[in-house]
């Protein structure tokens, strides 16, 4: 693996390798000394054109736990505000010798452009590009699902993860909410499908993207019906992305109250689900809109654990992208 840009087309073998490596990384994070020397001397640049708290901090933590040097770059307060293009920024990073670039950008495809335009020879990790993909979020969601529903770590997440090498076949995941604006939903649909899980998207018709029929999932417009009849093992709530809804929330649904009644997740809807089911949210949460406080803080909510797993998953991604020789080195080992 040279880049991690999308979960669409990620092979099942690579996905399981990423999850297994994440499990090993997670095991090192319960030690007193959490730092590993593995990427000492490597430089990881966090190139963030969009605001982010947890993803940037998560990548920064992951890189530091592997002893890489981290340079944080946010568009605000940089030459981007003077009009510098992505290309010129990339050439600057190349000149400074970045080994990996973690990029978040509001334009879909920005990460792909950065990886394949020839501006950089660093590995590129997509940390969210527009409404396209957010692969490490999907991987941490899949990792959390696997730990809980395959690995039997128990409700407090402290048990031993026995899921190494396993996929998610037979599990049902409902992804609920603002699918239209969600790169998390897109990444999850493809990754969970690759890993063998069944996915149903639940959203009001206005928040279902055009072309969804080509995705490997089902679509429902009714949350209650899906929860009662389909009995999902995991429910993933999506944030209503009001900043991407031009003209305020009124243009996609009549009122926040109505959205909350029809598509918000609360304790009543949680009670309908099977006892082993888990509730997920990629954060940041709009409490009271897509998820109620009672559901978000419920023992079956794994939202805080998702954040912790994010560090392990990003350590795994950085390790697999940076630790070995370049892709051409596959045959080299035999001659060394």
């Amino acid at each position: 693996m040279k880049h991690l840009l999308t979960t669409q087309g990620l092979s099942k073998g690579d996905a399981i390798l990423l999850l297994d490596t994440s499990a090993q990384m997670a095991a090192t994070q319960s030690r007193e000394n959490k730092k590993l020397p593995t990427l000492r001397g490597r430089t990881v640049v966090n190139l963030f054109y969009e605001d982010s708290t947890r993803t940037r901090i998560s990548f920064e933590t992951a890189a530091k736990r592997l002893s890489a040097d981290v340079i944080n770059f946010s568009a605000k307060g940089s030459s981007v505000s003077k009009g510098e293009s992505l290309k010129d920024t990339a050439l600057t990073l190349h000149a400074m010798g970045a080994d990996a670039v973690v990029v978040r950008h509001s334009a879909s495809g920005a990460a792909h452009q950065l990886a394949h335009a020839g501006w950089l020879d660093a590995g590129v990790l997509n940390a969210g590009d527009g409404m396209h993909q957010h692969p490490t979020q999907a991987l941490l969601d899949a990792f959390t699902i696997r730990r809980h529903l395959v690995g039997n770590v128990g409700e407090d997440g402290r048990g031993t993860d026995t899921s190494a090498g396993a996929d998610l076949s037979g599990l049902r995941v409902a992804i609920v909410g603002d699918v239209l604006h969600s790169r998390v939903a897109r990444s999850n649909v493809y990754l969970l499908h690759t890993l063998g899980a069944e996915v149903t998207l639940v959203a009001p018709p206005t928040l279902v993207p055009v072309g969804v029929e080509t995705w490997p999932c089902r679509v429902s417009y009714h949350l209650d019906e899906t929860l009662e009849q389909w009995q999902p093992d995991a429910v993933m709530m999506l944030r209503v992305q009001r900043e991407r809804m031009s003209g305020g929330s009124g243009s996609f649904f009549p009122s926040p109250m109505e959205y909350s009644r029809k598509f918000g997740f609360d304790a009543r809807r949680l009670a309908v689900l099977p006892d082993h089911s888990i509730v997920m949210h990629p954060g940041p949460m709009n409490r009271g809109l897509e998820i109620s406080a009672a559901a978000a803080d419920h023992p079956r909510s794994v939202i805080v654990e998702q954040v912790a797993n994010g560090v392990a998953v990003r350590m795994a991604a950085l390790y697999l992208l940076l630790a070995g020789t370049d892709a051409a080195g596959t045959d080299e080992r035999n001659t060394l």
Partner: protein
Amino acid sequence: MNPGSRMPESSPPSSTDPSADPSILAARTVLGEADIARALTRIAHEIVERNKGAADLLLLGIPTRGVQLARRLAERLAEIEPAFNGEYGTLDVTMYRDDLRRQPTRAVGQTVLPGSLDGTIDDKVVVLVDDVLFSGRTIRAALDALNDLGRPRVVQLAALVDRGHRELPIRADYVGKNLPTSRSERVRVRLADVDGGVDAVVISAASTTPASMTPASTGESGGAR
């Protein structure tokens, strides 16, 4: 050096069939099943003798074959010293290696400490167990990995085969067999519970590796450096 920590599942038992691999046609078995068993029994006695018992003893095997050797040593120690509980652990050194950037990405293995330890190795007598001691670089990585887990009272090293050619100032405390080799030769340890077939230590003169072969997958020591 133990390249076997790379993707243990990728070692097909069929690779032990000499007819499938022309490079080991000239292979010579230097230790058979009974020799390996005797060597391990002797090492177990030496461990107890050197440490005056098995108090605070912790066997840590280095994947892949070191783990199975540690398990066998633990069984023997439990027979010799009834006070010993037969536990052993696994120490993965992948993320501490000094050759990560010279090799394709290795899969990270598992580090497992016996449950009775409560996650710490402080003040234990740690015996590292590996199959072949060669350059010493794997053991250097293991010492770094141990350092991150805690502060053992003593660290000792047991190796089934010491083939020489050290590149670092490291020696083994317990050796199954000293095997004088040339650098171009390859020493392979095959264990029934990892590779199938019968236990054996095989030495072969192969200096070049066919491109189709994955040297690290057969527990050999010499080709992959």
